């Protein structure tokens, strides 16, 4: 059997693992996936940065602009009432999607970054003070580092870093040791954007709660790859963004337990977040509106609602099964290449491959992949401290999604072989 035939046979075997999940049908829902790049079919392996949009999302956003558009929450007319109902319906959709106790626990933000900044600026300023510790992990996105550093510089909190091992697995014992009497908050990724590591979130929350410490989980990557149940996790805050979840940019979500949100002061001032305003005094609206100053991202919310409906119809479990097959196949193929050094080999992992080719700069590798139509990200992935921990200046990251196939992984492998020939 030739190498090619072996590859095809193995790919076919993995395709069988995907039985019941019709990836070709799903691909047809994403218009951009039929385009070419540099004369080659687009292989989109940059979904960790931002996922592509299904027709359902595009149509919903166009439709609302063409037929239903107005402002929400304030108009004394038919369009405003119907669109307000639709907009608020999305809040209910989001709540159901992550199994929040109520739609009032869902705050609409611009993205994950804003959601974390919101918690740092409101909960942090009110409940944290000089000397208090905030525990993060050694594999955080800058979005879950910098807001806490800013708070540290402002009020003198201490940032504590829970270490990872060389596979990218969180050291739970070391994490437990950081939960001392000074620690007042844990803010941790649920799934690393660089390594793909999925942390034992329920255990992390339980350990913190045993010591009375609330937990914020950054679910930007996790919510895309598997079913998330914030009540089962018992997370106090859970944040994610719309554009990685096949929805539009400029919309994100902060889930917060009702009793916590109720105690938090507003984030920004303006319209929509008030109860009454006089020149002497303003009273603020109840959560979630208290945290949503100004006209919200209305069209984006409709798009995110459509995206959640779309993935829910397919089923997060089915998506996870498909992506697990992609992960296994990708790890196997990359593992066969002697010049590939993989970062992130945790047993619990999403289909995110971070790697370098020995002796080849990641930029050169990524540029060669690009020539083959394979879109990846190269660099530090907004995680410079993690890169320092890994001892590299940067990596190539292939982050896969539900619309990817094993055949596309084969295209990447062939392009990596070409890179070896060009630069090796």
């Amino acid at each position, binding site marked *: 059997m030739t190498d090619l035939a072996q590859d095809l046979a193995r790919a076919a075997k993995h395709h069988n693992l995907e039985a019941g999940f019709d990836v070709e049908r799903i691909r047809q829902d994403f218009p951009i996936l039929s385009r070419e790049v*540099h004369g080659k079919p687009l292989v989109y392996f940059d979904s960790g940065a931002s996922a592509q949009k299904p027709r359902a999302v595009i149509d919903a956003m166009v439709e609302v602009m063409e037929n239903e558009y107005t402002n929400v929450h304030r108009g004394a007319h038919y369009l405003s009432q119907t669109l307000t109902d639709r907009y608020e319906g999305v809040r209910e959709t989001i709540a159901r999607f992550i199994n929040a106790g109520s739609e009032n626990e869902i705050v609409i933000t611009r993205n994950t970054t804003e959601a974390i900044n919101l918690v740092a600026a409101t909960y942090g300023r009110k409940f944290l003070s000089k000397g208090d510790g905030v525990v993060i992990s050694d594999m955080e996105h800058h979005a879950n580092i910098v807001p806490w550093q800013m708070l540290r510089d402002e009020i003198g909190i201490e940032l504590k870093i829970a270490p990872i091992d060389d596979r990218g697995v969180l050291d739970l014992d070391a994490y437990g040791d950081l939960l001392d009497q000074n620690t007042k908050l844990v803010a941790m990724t649920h799934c690393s954007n660089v390594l793909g590591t999925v942390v034992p979130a329920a255990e992390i929350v339980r350990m913190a709660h045993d010591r009375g410490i609330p937990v914020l989980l950054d679910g930007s990557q996790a919510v895309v790859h598997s079913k998330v149940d914030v009540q089962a996790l018992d997370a106090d805050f859970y944040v994610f963004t719309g554009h990685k979840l096949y929805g539009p940019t400029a919309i994100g979500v902060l889930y917060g337990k009702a009793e916590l949100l109720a105690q938090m002061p507003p984030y920004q001032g303006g319209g929509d977040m008030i109860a009454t305003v006089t020149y002497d005094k303003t009273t603020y609206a109840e959560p979630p509106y208290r945290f949503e100053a100004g006209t919200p991202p209305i069209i984006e919310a409709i798009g995110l609602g459509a995206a959640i409906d779309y993935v829910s119809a397919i089923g997060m479990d089915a998506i996870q099964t498909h992506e697990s097959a992609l992960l296994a196949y990708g790890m196997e193929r990359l593992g066969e290449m002697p010049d590939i050094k993989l970062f992130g080999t945790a047993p619990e992992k999403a289909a995110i491959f971070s790697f370098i080719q020995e002796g080849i*700069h990641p*930029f*050169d590798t990524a*540029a060669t992949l690009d*020539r083959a139509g394979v879109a990846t990200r190269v*660099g530090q992935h907004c995680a410079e401290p993690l890169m320092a921990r890994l001892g590299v*200046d*940067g990596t190539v990251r292939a982050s896969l999604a539900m619309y990817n196939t094993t055949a596309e992984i084969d295209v990447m492998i062939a392009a990596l072989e070409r890179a070896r020939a*060009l630069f090796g």
Partner: protein
Amino acid sequence: MSIPAEKLTQYDEYVEALDLLDEESRFEYIIDIGKRADKTPFPSDCMDDVHLMHGCMSKVWIVHEVVDGVHEFRGQSDAIIVKGLVSMMTGSFSGLTSDELAAVTLDQVRGLNLGALTMQRQVGMMAMLKHMQKLSQRAENGADRSAAAE
């Protein structure tokens, strides 16, 4: 200010060569230039923060000196493709006076026709030109200050 044609012979050679190639061959051509540039020694003590050009996905160092009133540049990068691109830029636009260098336009960089090799690299080339112009301007200002001091 127009730049004398004889000072842009290297630039013209690149433009002509790239013009004859299809997109895939251009990619390999730049890699070849990068590999060839690797054989020209670049002072390792210049691969430091002082000579680092910020804002690139790979590291780029540019060394600049004024020789007989014209600006000479040498570049280095840790990525071969970028090394090729830096080499094309420093090769194209070395040997110019300050005024001539300031007259190099973004259109001339676009004239190298590297756009198809992704915007990132195209934008990187623009940044390189601006960096080289800034270095020459800084040297010019330094010389002015020295002259004024005398």
